[in-house]
């Protein structure tokens, strides 16, 4: 891998070196390295681009890294990754995509990640998106995440997109069986003329299943964002969605939270708030000696932390 690819890799997966545990690194549409372990297998799909990640039942304290980096301008790819997580596992999965586009052509990575989480398993899933390069070609990512959660499983999903991606349409759908619990934290910042769309749909089908979706977003300059969250309570369950957004300059944000209770014992809450940075927050930090610009930066960093 060259230096640009290494930098991308560090941004999206926090990797300086080859990670320990299982990994599959995809660079410019090709495999740039793979490691499997006794418990985690990675198999190339034969019918379409992508991989199957198969985690044996009972696998604990192991991690899988599957970062993707694109540094060749004009490359477009659609990748299917399926995660089969056995019962009673406790694993961390780190995905992420970095695009460096210094050319004039559009570079695009569309990934479809499907999770099949076995009974009583715990999964932490981290996904980071990052774009760099000063070419006029756009950097586009359209990730789709589909989660099927079996009884008593737990998934914590953390997605971050802070810089450099021109256009994103993110779609996340999940269905949960009895006592399954899903926690999603999304952090998003757009600037320039970027566009980001985030669409969640969660079906709480099992008794005592629960979901918590938390989105923190900042839109600067002329960027636009759309946040849609739909939680269907189809059983005795608890669902909560929260979209908290800071708007700056000429940016626009739309938030459409929807909750549907299809069972008498479904307890569902949605919250959405969009507003500019409170003037008194800036003044408070200025009384500590920060300039107005430093105060704004501090507030946004904290908000997206």
């Amino acid at each position, binding site marked *: 891998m060259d230096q640009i690819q290494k930098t991308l890799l560090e941004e999206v997966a926090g990797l300086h070196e080859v990670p320990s545990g299982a990994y599959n690194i995809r660079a410019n549409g090709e495999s740039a390295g793979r490691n499997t372990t006794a418990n985690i297998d990675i198999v190339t799909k034969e019918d379409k681009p992508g991989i199957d990640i198969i985690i044996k039942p009972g696998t604990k304290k192991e991690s899988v890294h599957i970062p993707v980096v694109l540094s060749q301008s004009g490359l477009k790819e659609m990748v299917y990754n399926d995660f089969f997580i056995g019962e009673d596992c406790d694993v961390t999965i780190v995905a992420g995509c970095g695009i460096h586009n210094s050319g004039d052509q559009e570079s695009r990575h569309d990934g479809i990640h499907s999770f099949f989480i076995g009974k009583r398993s715990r999964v932490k899933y981290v996904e980071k998106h990052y774009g760099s390069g000063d070419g006029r070609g756009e950097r586009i990512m359209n990730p789709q995440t589909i989660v099927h959660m079996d009884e008593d499983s737990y998934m914590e999903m953390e997605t971050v997109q802070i810089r450099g991606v021109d256009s994103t349409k993110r779609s996340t759908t999940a269905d949960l069986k009895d006592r399954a619990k899903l926690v999603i934290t999304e952090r998003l910042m757009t600037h320039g003329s970027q566009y980001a769309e985030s669409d969640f749909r969660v079906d709480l089908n099992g008794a005592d299943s629960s979901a918590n979706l938390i989105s923190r977003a900042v839109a600067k300059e002329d960027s636009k964002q759309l946040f849609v969250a739909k939680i269907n309570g189809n059983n005795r369950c608890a669902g909560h969605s929260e979209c908290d957004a800071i708007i700056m300059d000429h940016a626009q944000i739309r938030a459409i939270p929807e909750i549907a209770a299809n069972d008498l014992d479904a307890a569902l809450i949605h919250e959405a708030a969009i507003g500019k940075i409170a003037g008194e927050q800036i*003044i*408070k930090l*200025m*009384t*500590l*000696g920060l*300039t107005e610009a430093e105060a704004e930066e*501090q507030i946004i960093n*904290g908000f*997206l932390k």
Partner: protein
Amino acid sequence: MLELQNLSFQVEGQDSNTKEIIKNINLTLEDHTFTAITGPNGGGKSTLAKLIMGIEKPTSGKIIFDGTDITNMDVSERARLGISFAFQQPVRFKGIKVKDLITLASRDKLSTAGACEFLSKVGLCARDYINREVDASLSGGELKRIEIATIIARNTPLSVFDEPEAGIDLWSFSNLIKVFEEMHDKKENSLIIISHQERILNIADEIVVIADGAVKARGKKSDILPELLDTNGGCRFYQ
């Protein structure tokens, strides 16, 4: 230390009539003094404090701080010059931790132990608070004590407190008095405290009574306090 010269502040009222909040105030405060500002609600005390910090700009007049005309300086410039301000209603932040705020205030890389020292002074068990966010999960009283801790951490030549006692429980109030006494005993810095509390007025070197936008009285506590506390005949400053 601080000189207010012919300071006035007006706001646009209804029917575009202007309302005078501060009326031609002249006041000089000496180095290393503790001045308590008191007076009836709506009399202009908080506005005066905001004018000193630069949160509001005067309509006319001058503010001189340590010989420098700061009238046209913004809030950050005044903060860097050595003025601190404790808000009557402290601001909440999502995502900023107590430690972050105290570190920003002290302008140094603070160790956790260093930040804890400031929190202990305001009666907060540091271990429980240092990593908490300064958000809606904190009560009004907790927030207020953290606000005061940021001012202690700043340790600037002039600290202005806008009703520090508001929202503080009785136990913390005694500690608060100790904090102000300690700050004053060092004789390094000056304090301006806006307060209605007799115990705070009692430890000040000087009391300034502001009512209806003007200085109604000024003097040592032995002269001003009896008048303020005379409930029989009614206080002449509160009419």
